[in-house]
């Protein structure tokens, strides 16, 4: 029984460490629902408006209402349930911890606000990315950034955002592999054995990605 429990824990750890759930959260899924049919610019403006409302609106009722809007948007986007639940789980835990801290301080109202505001933003952002192809999001970013083109090429900005999104799961994998390598050498508890190689591998990866972009003539 103990062995089974240990195996289960190891498997759960492994599943977490590969970052598979987080990597798939918010990936575009083709569809024909109302959110899919909305133009990308409208959805991004909606997301921005929700962000402002979350900051400006006070009180748990407003926070719960905004949470309801974000949850409805996510339902309309029809993301894959299992992947989404798995991807959101760590954020729910984080929201729970933040709320718990507020309860511990004796401010229950603030606890509701903090947790629901955080989840509202994540749910709404997920709804946007699930229902909008990356190419459409990049096209909007290019259009919005056009007035800044003297200082910042819009295409480069859009590419940087796309790269950032792609890099999150990749860095998760680098960390997981480095942690495994440290464990294999009996250095699982030494933070230097994790952080230094992970940092070096991250820089190496950034250089390799830069070379790959140059090889594809992107950004020229």
């Amino acid at each position: 029984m103990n062995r089974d429990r240990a195996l289960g824990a190891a498997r759960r750890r492994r599943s977490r460490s590969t970052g598979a759930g987080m990597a798939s959260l918010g990936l575009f899924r083709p569809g024909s629902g109302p959110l899919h049919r909305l133009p990308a610019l409208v959805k991004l403006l909606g997301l921005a408006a929700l962000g402002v409302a979350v900051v400006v609106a006070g009180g748990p009722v407003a926070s719960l209402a905004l949470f309801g809007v974000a949850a409805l948007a996510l339902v309309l986007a029809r993301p894959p349930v299992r992947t989404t639940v798995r991807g959101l789980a760590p954020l729910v835990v984080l929201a729970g911890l933040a709320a718990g801290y507020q309860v511990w301080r004796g401010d229950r109202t603030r606890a509701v606000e903090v947790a629901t505001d955080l989840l509202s933003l994540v749910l709404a952002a997920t709804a946007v990315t699930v229902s909008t192809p990356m190419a459409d999001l990049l096209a909007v970013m290019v259009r919005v950034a056009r007035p800044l083109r003297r200082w910042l090429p819009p295409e480069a900005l859009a590419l940087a955002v796309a790269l950032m999104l792609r890099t999150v799961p990749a860095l998760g994998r680098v960390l997981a592999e480095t942690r495994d390598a440290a464990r294999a050498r009996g250095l699982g508890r030494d933070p230097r054995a994790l952080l230094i190689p992970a940092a070096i591998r991250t820089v190496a990866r950034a250089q390799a990605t830069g070379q790959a972009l140059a090889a594809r003539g992107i950004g020229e």
Partner: protein
Amino acid sequence: MIEFESADVVVPGPGGEDVRILEPVTGTFPERRVSVIGPNGSGKSTLVRLINGLALPDSGAVRVNGLDTVTDGPAVRRQVGFVFTDPDAQLVMPTVVEDVVLSLRRLDLSTKDRRARALEVLARYRLEHLADVSVHALSGGQKQLLALASVLATEPRILVCDEPTTLLDLRWRHYVDELLDSLDQQTVIVTHDLDAAMRADRTLVVDRARVVFDGPPVEAVAFYRSLAGQSLEPR
């Protein structure tokens, strides 16, 4: 046509001194299939990186269809596709179809047409069922195939592959090899797979920063085997 004219590459060494990682190379390569073999760290990758301007010659010149890689870099890269050993570094967009779409940004197409073209490309390489899947979720073989598809989407005239099958299992290695063999483009492939090297029209053997053999594949492989029999000595 690829031309090397006394092209060499020098990098700063640990003590600040110049270290030549590729001795001057001269040659013209009109063959449809060229393979490059040699020990690890011998300079094979540096040699092929010169072809699309990822590495630039410190002296001499490299020309592709008459274009100089130093002065006409972007034009050269439009003609020369490059596939790396590790596709993870090469795939930069979140989903499969979006990575192909990124390659097509050079073409003057609408967003809708780009996606349609990208789906056509994926269908050609039997990846269409993975179009909206995260690149993170692909197997190593699927990633390398996607990296190839993303490069071939722009229909380059020359394809350079730096150990494209090194990280693949046997089945995927066969599949990628067959795909590379079937291409109309001129292909330059760096490989440790001597069977693949033998299928080329011409083979270069690189050792200790020099091209030490340049000729028919069978003889080149025999020469490389004789090299491999020599003792390993640190440079």
